């Protein structure tokens, strides 16, 4: 194939030959074996080159496809891993919640069965104050103390707090403070109740101090974070032979073990 022959075939393939040139070539292609061979070779070469170009495109597509599939697989793996982590965390959380609920239930049951209601103490105090006077000594109870205790009995807790806070008589302050703690505990103000019960005056009667310690321990028992403190107080009570709750606490600690 000469350069000139190639130019003619190239122009023919691009349909850029004039009408007469095209007719002349087509006549040769029909009759002349030399031109038939040239055209056949030219077509084969053109198709081969085109196929090479196609192969380059296919390589590009396959490479992009392989990367895409890899990314999809990685995405799926990440999704499954995250789902696994989430499921694991969810399970742990569920176990923790169930455990906390179980613990809460256990301590609520304990409180229901073991916590001696301070109502008895309140009734006794009221009875004493109303019949025999303060401290069985005939000392007249301050009206605020009396009203405060009566208000607790009637569950008018705000009035009780207001009245008990007004008790100024030094000898009557420990009992006022104990029942202030009770009024706050019953009104749901746990921290105030603890504050009053933990800071009983030094000269408070021993029985009142022990009662305050006992009540504080049950407030601590209500929450998981302070439950260890409750147990520590119960252990103290269990070791104290003069504490009226010693035996009860010994039993309770035994149950907890």
């Amino acid at each position, binding site marked *: *194939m000469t*350069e000139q022959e*190639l*130019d003619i075939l*190239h122009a023919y393939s*691009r349909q850029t030959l004039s009408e007469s040139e095209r007719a002349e070539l087509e006549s040769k292609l029909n009759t002349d074996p030399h031109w038939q061979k040239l055209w056949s*070779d030219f077509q*084969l*070469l*053109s*198709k*081969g*080159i*085109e*196929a*090479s*170009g*196609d*192969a*380059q*495109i*296919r390589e*590009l*597509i*396959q*490479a*992009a*496809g392989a*990367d*895409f*599939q890899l990314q999809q697989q990685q995405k799926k793996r990440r999704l499954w891993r995250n789902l696994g982590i989430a499921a694991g965390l969810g399970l742990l959380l569920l176990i923790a919640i169930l455990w906390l609920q179980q613990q809460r239930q256990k301590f609520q049951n304990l409180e229901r069965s073991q916590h001696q209601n301070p109502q008895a103490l309140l009734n006794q105090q009221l009875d004493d104050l109303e019949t025999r006077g303060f401290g069985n000594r005939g000392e007249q109870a301050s009206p605020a103390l009396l009203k405060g205790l009566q208000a607790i009995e009637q569950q008018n807790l705000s009035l009780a707090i207001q009245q008990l806070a007004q008790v100024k008589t030094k000898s009557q302050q420990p009992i006022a403070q104990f029942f202030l703690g009770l009024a706050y505990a019953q009104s749901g103000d746990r921290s105030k109740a603890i504050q009053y019960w933990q800071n009983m005056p030094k000269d408070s009667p021993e029985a009142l101090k022990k009662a305050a310690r006992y009540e504080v321990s049950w407030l601590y028992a209500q929450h998981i974070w302070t439950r260890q403190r409750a147990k520590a107080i119960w252990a103290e009570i269990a070791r104290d032979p003069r504490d009226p709750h010693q035996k009860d606490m010994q039993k309770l600690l035994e149950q907890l073990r």
Partner: protein
Amino acid sequence: MQKESDIIVGLKNGERFAFDWVYRHCFAKATSYLRQHRGSAQDAEDFFQEALFVLVKKLRDPEFELTASCSTFLYTVVRNLWLYHQRKAGRVISTQEDQFLYLAESAGMAYWQLGEEKAEQAEQIEQVKSAFSGLSSECHQFLLLNYFEYKDDAEIADTMNYSLEFVKVKRFRCLKKLKEILGL
């Protein structure tokens, strides 16, 4: 954010970012029909590759104008190829689908068939491809511009920094070399 017009240019020029973009943005939509009609994940991958190849070939045709979005075009081609494949495999296609296929084929979309016609010359073409890989990179580029991208001589001269006259000389030399390797 890539514009679709940039992607079209990228696909025409064989730029990798464009192919990655098409996979990311069109694969799921384009293969949705196939996946809803008994196609496997491997089928989706194979038919999408074929459809993307059709798109690139079409884009390189100067007379072709893409009027739909890439994903719509690819969806149509994947669907047509899949229906054609199903019909060849003797699976039942509903009348509505058959009509759709007929319309699509009339519109010149059935590249699959063209591929089969080419298969007769496949061996010879493979030999040319192999010989082609033995040419210099300059001849590669030159012949691909001529017989793959169908650029005219003026465009080739501009792209390769040749004179118009030298384009003809170069074409002759490169083809002659190719023929020599093939023993034609």
